[in-house]
Structures are given as C-alpha cells and as structure tokens.
C-alpha cells in the first residue's frame, strides 16, 4: 500500500516537470546508462521538489563538460570506466528467505567479528519478520533524539521536511562543480543521512550505531550532510565492519560536514566493501569526496577512517579551517591486501588564524597491493600562527607490495609551523618467529603487530567500534603471510 502511494506521489511529481520524461516510473530499475532522463527518473522516484531536481540537472550538465577531467593523478591503475554501462537507480534487492541461503563464508566472517545473530541476518539481506531488540532500541532512541531537537533522517526525507536547512548547506562544502566524482554524485545520489544538531546540544549518543542495521541500501551514490550548530557536539559513525557486497562496482559518495562556532563533529568510518578476489577480479571502486568546514571560531572536525575494503579507494577526507582557532584532525588506517589499491589521505586548508591540524596516517600493504598516502597542508596568508603536525607510517607485509607517501605542504604565512614525519617498516621474519615461539599462530602474530601499529588511530574510534575494527584488521590480513 505504502509503495503504491509512493509511486502515485512520484508520478504526480513527474507531471510538474517542464521537461519530457520517457523512462517508466513504475519500473524498479532505471535502464542502464546516464542521461537527463535518468536524473529526472531518480528525482521523480524520490518525489523531490523542483529545486532539488534543478540542482541535480545543473550538476549533470556540468558533469558532461568534465568528460576529459576524470582524475588520473592518483597512483591507481584500473580500466577506464564506462559510465554508460552502469545502472544509476535500482530498488533494494530481493531478500533471501532464510539464513541457509547466505554464503557460509560470509557468516564465518560475521562470527569472527562477533556480530550478533539478529544483525547478521539483516546484514546478509535475509528477510526478517520478528522485531529484534536492536530495532526497538533504535526506535526508542530516535524518539529521544527528536525530543532534543536533533534532526537525523534520510536526506531524501529532509529535502521535504527541512528544505531551508538542506538548501542552505547542501553543496556548501562540496559544490556541484567540485570534482568529477562529486559532480556525478550531485546528479544521481540515491540517499544518505541528514543530521542537524541544535545550538548548544551535546548529542549524548553516537549517531548510527543503533541505526546502522536499519539503514536502507544506499551504498552506491550516498550523500551525507551533517550540520553542528553553535556550541554543539556530535559523533557520527558510518559504515560497518561486516563485509558488504554490492552489485554496483562504482561508488561515489559525498559527505559534507559543517561545524559552526564552538561546535565539534567527530566522524568515524569503517569501510569494508568487497575488495575483489585474490587476483583482483571484481571489487568496488570507491571514489569518495568527504570534506568538513570548520566554519565557526573554535570549531573542530575530526575524521577517523578505517579503510579495509574496496578494490580501489580514492578518498581524502579534508578540513577547511575557516574559523579562528579551529581544529582539524585526520586519523587513518588503510589496509590493502592481494591486488587492492588505495590512494588516500587528507587536505588541511588553514584559512583562519591560530588554526591547528593533525594528521596521523597508517598504511598497511600486503600481497601485491599498493598503498599511497597523499596529503595537502595549505596555510593561507591570514592563518597566523597556525600549526600542522603530520605523521605517516607505512607497514609492509611481504616484498611484493608497495607503500608511497606524497605530502604537499604550501605555506603562505611565515608565522605558521608545519611538521612532517614519515616512516616505513616491515614485519620481519624475526618478529614473526618471536611471536610464533610464544605460541601464537601466524595470523595472531600479524594481527597483534598490525593492531599495535595502528593503535593510535583505532583508539580514536568509539569504544564498541574499536573492538570490531581490531578484529577487522586481523581478518583483512588473513593469508597475508605463510
């Protein structure tokens, strides 16, 4: 019934559009390829207001002009992507009837991660009838959040319920002209989260821990917008340690964070998309644009990411430090195994006076994988007495993988101080033997050493996430030695 109403509403919306529309709105899947029609189809499916559609179309038309500007500077090798060969809208997948139909290997991994049975079913895409505790917990918390004035909902809903906020902030940190993938996202984004924390509120719970299992399948072109109003605080968790599969190879998410005066946003990600098989077949291409604006004075944005999945990771969560005394931090663990490639890092753009940034990056490569840290620290002319501290450590497992560090530092203010430290090390046979001699298996030994190597980053994760992330680190390196 609800689905029918939704469709009806969508159709009604379609009628208002100035331009023609040829794709059948009843269909659950848009045809292959990208065109204005597809953009309209997606917008219609979501019953979006006209301004939203106009924004998407503006982005789409701009994207067409970028045909020759697909980024090639990253240290990544992959065949040219045929954007007309992808699907840009598909309704959620058919559920599996029972746990018996789930790939046993996937269940094995869930078990190792210690994911509760109820969540396992949801993650694996099994149809669930019963109301689980975690779901009712989620509902309870949602109500509490509402009472406190927190807005936390799918962005597709926020477009309707809070158009003034969405209009004001969407694209204000990552404009539709930003880069090839971000522009594509603006045109075709499917859904994502919208968060608004009202003035002075310290959001008492981590957003999305309780909700992650209820999230719709919005993996491919996710769009997230988080606004922390003056003096507020929020910790947001994205992703999931459980391995996630997706039929769509191309992912291009955009995340925008806005911190006003004295506000703080802590954004933690665990990314574990399908990395492809040991020979590099399949696997997700993850081209993500994440950026936060410390718009107000004394504001703070802290990114923590644990990147273990995807065949290709292209991702630079950044901070624009506009407000005086604002702080940007970036903590990253990127693990590549087998044939995975990651080119990831951050940009810290210091504009305000006395702004501070800190970058801690831990790259781990095993197998035939390549791992690049790429970071920019830019100190603007007005950023008096600003400071940056960067530390990039690489750990190699085996001798067929690569680690690269590409730091860019640009300073236009002589009173600013930047510090950069970098190390590269290897897990030695002596270290492994030492651990084995104490009764650990190869895998326990690698896990112990690698977890020690990235401890500083994992510690910044919210408690329960940190424990899962540690296990994830071990699991992603299984089979990397011996």
């Amino acid at each position, binding site marked *: 019934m609800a689905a029918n109403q939704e469709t009806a509403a969508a159709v009604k919306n379609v009628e208002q559009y100035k331009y023609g529309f040829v794709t059948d709105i009843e269909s659950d899947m848009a045809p292959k390829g990208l065109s204005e029609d597809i953009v309209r189809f997606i917008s219609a499916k979501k019953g979006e207001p006209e301004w939203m559609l106009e924004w998407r179309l503006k982005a789409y038309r701009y994207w067409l002009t970028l045909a020759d500007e697909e980024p090639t500077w990253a240290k990544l090798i992959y065949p040219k992507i045929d954007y007309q060969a992808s699907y840009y809208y598909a309704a959620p997948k058919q559920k599996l009837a029972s746990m018996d139909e789930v790939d046993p290997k996937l269940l094995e991994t869930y078990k190792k991660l210690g994911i509760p049975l109820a969540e396992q079913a949801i993650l694996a895409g099994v149809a669930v009838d019963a109301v689980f505790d975690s779901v009712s917990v989620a509902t309870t918390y949602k109500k509490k959040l509402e009472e406190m004035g927190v807005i936390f909902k799918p962005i597709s809903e926020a477009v309707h319920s809070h158009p003034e906020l969405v209009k004001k902030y969407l694209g204000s940190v990552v404009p539709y002209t930003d880069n090839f993938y971000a522009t594509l996202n603006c045109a075709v984004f499917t859904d994502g989260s919208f968060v608004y924390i009202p003035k002075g509120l310290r959001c008492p719970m981590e957003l999305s821990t309780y909700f992650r299992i209820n999230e719709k399948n919005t993996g491919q072109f996710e769009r997230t917008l988080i606004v922390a109003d003056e003096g507020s605080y929020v910790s947001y968790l994205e992703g999931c340690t459980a391995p996630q599969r997706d039929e769509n190879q191309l992912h291009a998410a955009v995340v925008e964070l806005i911190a006003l005066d004295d506000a703080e946003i802590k954004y933690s990600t665990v990314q574990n998309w399908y990395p492809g098989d040991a020979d590099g077949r399949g696997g997700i291409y993850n081209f993500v644009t994440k950026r936060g604006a410390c718009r107000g004075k004394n504001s703070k944005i802290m990114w923590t990411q644990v990147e273990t999945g995807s065949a290709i990771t292209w991702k630079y969560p950044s901070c624009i430090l506009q407000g005086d005394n604002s702080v940007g931090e970036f903590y990253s663990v990127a693990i590549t195994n087998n044939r995975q490639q990651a080119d990831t890092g951050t940009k810290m753009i210091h504009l305000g006076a006395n702004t501070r940034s800190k970058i801690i990056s831990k790259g781990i490569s095993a197998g035939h994988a390549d791992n690049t840290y790429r970071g920019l620290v830019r100190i603007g002319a007005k950023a008096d007495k600003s400071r940056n501290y960067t530390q990039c450590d690489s750990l190699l497992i085996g001798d067929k993988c690569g680690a690269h560090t590409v730091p860019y530092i640009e300073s236009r203010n002589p009173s600013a101080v930047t510090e950069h430290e970098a190390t590269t090390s290897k897990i030695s046979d002596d270290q492994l033997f030492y*651990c084995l001699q104490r009764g*650990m298996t*190869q895998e326990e030994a690698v896990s112990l050493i690698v977890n020690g190597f990235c401890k500083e980053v994992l510690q910044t994760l919210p408690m329960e996430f940190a424990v899962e992330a540690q296990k994830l680190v071990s699991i992603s390196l299984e089979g990397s030695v011996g």
Partner: protein
Amino acid sequence: MALLEIKNLHASVAGKEILKGVTLALEPGEVHAIMGPNGTGKSTLSNVIAGREGYEVTKGQVLLDGEDVLAMAADERARAGIFLAFQYPVEIPGVTTSAFLKTALNAKRRAAGEKEIDAMEFMKLVKKKTEALGMPYDMIKRALNVGFSGGEKKRAEVLQMTMLEPRVAILDETDSGLDIDALRVVSDGVNSLRAPDRAFLVITHYQRLLDYIVPDHVHVLANGRIAASGGKELALELEAEGYAKYLNAAA
C-alpha cells in the same frame, strides 16, 4: 622417558653444517647447562629445537615426551611447551608488553582447552610476576623490548617464561648483560620454576650463573658436537682452562 631428547642431530645453515651429531637427553626435573666457544652452534641448537626457519636438519631427531618435535610448526612446538629465551630478543614496536603477554598466554590456554584469561586475573598475575622479577609494573605498558636496556630485555624474556610456564625452557645466554643483582633475581625466577615435570637447557659463557642456577649436568658444545659432559665441576674447569682441549680433540 626423557622429557626432551635430542638424538644425533645434524643441522646446516646456508649450506654449512653447524650441528654435527648432537645427542642430549633432559630428564624431567633436570637442569642442563651448555657451554662452548663463540660460533660453535649453541644458538643454532636452540633455534633448531624451537623451529626457526632457515635451518636444515639433515639427520637426527628431537623428541618431546617421545613426540617428533621436528614435524611440528614453530607455534605448535611452543604450545606443546617448548620455550626459548632469546639471546637477542627482537623489538615489536606498537605492541605493548602487556598485549603481547596476554596474546601469548591466551594462545597457550586455548590450546589447552581453557578459556581466555579475564582482564583482572591477568593484571593480578602480571603484577605478581613482575614484582618477583623486580620489574616496575609500568614496564608492561611499553612496547615490547622497544628501548629496553640489554638487561631489561633479558628480564622480559624471563617474565614471559614465568607467565607461560613451559615444559622445557631453553635460556640462550639469558645471563649476559645482567648486572649482579639482576642475575640473582633472574636466577630466582628460573629456580622458582624448577619442578619435577619441567626441564631447563641453560646456555651460558659464565660459570657464575651456575652458582645461582645449579645444574644437574654441564656439557661442552664444540665443533658441532657434545665434546664433554660432567657435573658442575666441569664448568669450573672450563673457566680455569678454556676450551682449547676440546677444540683440538674434536678437530
């Protein structure tokens, strides 16, 4: 049956034969000391027993309780109860001594079908063991062996031994680099583990250690073989006369 039995063991490193027929039997409860010139193969013997890669065993056997040790992987040997206190313990950056100890202890417990140690119990145990070895408790918060002084590294080896309570402990020059007080403390640590069902193989260059850890047997390893065996008096004799006699005899 001997607890650890080494029979006619031949082993080479990088194509060069180092052990040329070592035979040795450690009965339960015994402490054996091995002395011998530099480069004669004492560490090679310990590494071969512990299962380090890069050593080729060309002949002979090593048996633990009659079980073929050489057929086991290094970690299996450790879980079966073979412990090696390294001559040169490696540094493991980022891994706290405490995390390392806990992982090792749990590996052993799991193999024995026991459940993992809980945090409180672990802390109590470490506290007790570090105190006994005169180590500051805070030491376990530091990365294993990283920045440890020579003597601290050796103490950390003994700490691991007393935590893991192996069946056979091989101490490869654990006394070198220890100051006089440390030597006593470490020896006390070893002596406290002496038990009817446990055996020790103590490699040392100094007879002084054997004043503290009194051995049942002393062996001279020279030219890849046990060139002589005797009681504690053999160590005193070696100290006085050196190894010349054995080197010439074996050559």
